[in-house]
């Protein structure tokens, strides 16, 4: 039955062939690794991004990222954090000790004059801490020049835009969030994030109903201005131009006898979804006006990702920040990030089995999916490299 889709779709699929190869993610991009509060002073933590084990170390207020794989026998240094000085990190197993800045082997606990000292090193990664999140630039060693973090964050709407919402690059923005593991390939997570057809899964959600709003059944693009593409300097991505008349909310289906009250009570003013490389979602004016929700779907390996959910809010004063933290803890986190987005996480995980077994060739897309195909092409065109599976990657 899927013959129509696969026979007509194959020519199109070649256009985004590099995307289909990106099972392990795209490389040479900035990815969030940890929330700042997860890495204490003098702390060491390990994370896995796109199949690359990365060790984060904070010492004297500075943050460092090194490959979390000892050059000696390949163990993860983060399994048992061991540091004897501020400027090094040691392996707990046989004491190979590395400079935190350049990764050089500077000593071995029980072989301080070993000929290997100074000859080998751990690779290091650029790190940047921004608004409570530690970002790591994951990709090829020596990639030059490392683009600014802002190139891998969502596009910054102009100040005079009527429905401007909090953005990570605004001075007054505070970002609060959670992260958890999703058992699906990172691309499935991304593709759900801004899928105009997926709002059906949120139709019966408490966050929507309790606020007196009503979800459309879906959104149908009406013309080629429904999707705005960002391909110039700076972030690369796509924006669904909801609320501009280029997207039509679908409010009823006669055949199924379903109606949505969405058109009558359109309470989603200023809500737009957009997705930027390497897979960061922006939902402006959500869960509430002037706030915005940001999500990353950071590949761990080929079948799991870290689902980052962050709410940004403007907090010019410490008082505002306290209020935001209170609202976050008792409202945004439980109702939006958990209850509401649990349905998204569920949907992504539900796709995994199909896509891990040939689904990319077998899927039967429909008219609602235009933006998803545009996204795939956007990644095919503007990625800074396709991550190789760990077995094919040189050391």
């Amino acid at each position: 039955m899927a013959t129509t889709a696969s026979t007509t779709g194959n020519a199109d699929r070649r256009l985004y062939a590099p995307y289909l190869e990106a099972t392990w993610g795209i490389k040479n991009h900035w990815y969030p690794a940890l929330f700042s509060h997860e890495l204490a002073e003098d702390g060491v933590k390990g994370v896995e991004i796109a199949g690359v084990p990365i060790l984060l170390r904070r010492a004297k207020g500075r943050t460092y990222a090194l490959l979390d794989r000892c050059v000696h026998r390949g163990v993860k240094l983060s399994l048992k954090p061991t540091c004897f000085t501020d400027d090094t990190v040691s392996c707990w197993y046989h004491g190979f000790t590395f400079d935190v800045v350049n990764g050089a082997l500077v000593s071995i606990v029980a072989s301080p004059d070993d000929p290997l000292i100074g000859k080998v090193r751990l690779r290091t990664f650029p790190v940047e801490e921004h608004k409570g999140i530690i970002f790591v630039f994951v990709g090829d060693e020596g990639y030059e020049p490392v683009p600014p973090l802002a190139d891998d964050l969502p596009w910054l709407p102009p100040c005079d835009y009527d429905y401007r919402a909090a953005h990570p690059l605004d001075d007054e923005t505070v970002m609060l969030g959670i992260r958890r593991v999703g058992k699906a390939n990172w691309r499935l997570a991304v593709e759900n994030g801004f899928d105009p057809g997926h709002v059906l899964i949120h139709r019966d959600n408490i966050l929507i109903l309790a606020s007196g709003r009503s979800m459309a059944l879906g959104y149908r693009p009406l013309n080629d201005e429904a999707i705005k593409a960002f391909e110039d300097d700076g972030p690369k991505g796509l924006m669904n131009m909801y609320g501009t008349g280029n997207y039509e909310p679908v409010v009823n289906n006669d055949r199924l006898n379903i109606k949505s009250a969405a058109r009558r009570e359109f309470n989603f003013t200023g809500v737009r979804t957009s997705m930027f490389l390497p897979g960061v979602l922006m939902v402006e004016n959500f869960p509430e006006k002037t706030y915005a929700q940001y999500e990353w779907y950071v590949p761990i390996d080929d079948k799991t990702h870290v689902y980052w959910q962050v709410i940004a809010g403007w907090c010019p004063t410490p008082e505002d920040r306290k209020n935001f933290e209170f609202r976050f803890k008792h409202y945004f986190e439980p109702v939006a990030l958990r209850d509401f987005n649990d349905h998204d996480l569920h949907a992504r995980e539900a796709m995994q089995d199909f896509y891990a077994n040939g689904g990319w060739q077998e899927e039967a897309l429909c008219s609602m999916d235009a933006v998803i195909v545009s996204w795939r092409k956007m990644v095919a065109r503007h990625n800074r490299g396709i991550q190789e599976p760990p077995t094919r990657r040189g050391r």
Partner: protein
Amino acid sequence: MDASAVMSTVRLCFRDGVERAIEAAQGESVLAAALRAGVPLVHQCESGSCGTCMARLVAGEASLLPGRALSLLAGEIRDGWRLTCSVAAAGDCAFALDYASTVLDGPQPAVLAATVTALDWVAKTVARLEIAIETADFTFESGQYVRIRVPGTDAWRSYSMATTAKELPRMQFLIRRLDGGAMSAWLRDACAPGALVEIEGPLGSFGLTASKGPRLMIAGGTGLAPMLAMLDTLRQRPGPRLPVLLCFGCTGEDDLFYVDELELRRFWMPNLKTRVALMHRPAGVFDGAIGTAVSLIEDADLRAPGLDAFLCGPPPMIEAARGRLIAGGVPETAIHAEHFRPT
């Protein structure tokens, strides 16, 4: 002290028959002496543990350096094995290395067996041949070629890979059909999936250089093959994407191929521009130019500082292109060419 008095001559005998003689100082490890003399020996720990620097003492004496615990077994030592990082020459001596002298120089050509996996005609006169090799450690650089033996004969023909090492064990070639040609006849009459072929490679030094400026590629006919491999490598290579201009010329409609593949690469590489020319005006629709690959070059293309030019195709095209580039001010050293000479 007279330096010659404490120097010993060490002969290093490699498996490929190459012999190198080096001078080793007293107390200096044979490995250190070899590296100092620019003779690369395989090694890692330099402390007598890992065993990778093992070599067999075949003449003379060598003494163990102090403070080394060796991973060699007593039986191995009896058989003449030594760790070059941990012994010093005691007078003139010789070691046999169990590997070729070129082992650290990168991929060396070898003769390999391969199986044809696909053959299609992408134009009336151009075949796309895909083979799969059976050797796991074979690799090559984009731009290189292999020689393929015309099955059933002693004739070998050279063909540039149109795919990259990433696609191994598969390799694709784009081959022009020549009337009366030996390989051409085999492709036309006998080649089918499953056929066995012998290849030798990788060969050649044509390929990407460490350019800092834009790249200009000029391809005549199947001279497009190495350019495709180089484009795919550029796309996958880390670092900022420098501009690439590809000028591609074919004789006529029947020889034109891969317009769709070029379109795909333009889509994947926003930094790539392509121009196509045919020498003979075609009957059907064609939105390229009438002329040759060389006639597609504009003066402005040659003015970019740091430009590197890559030429591939039949020798007359290369000569025309080279002349055009030099007249346009491109230095000789920035021109890299692969001639598809009759082989």
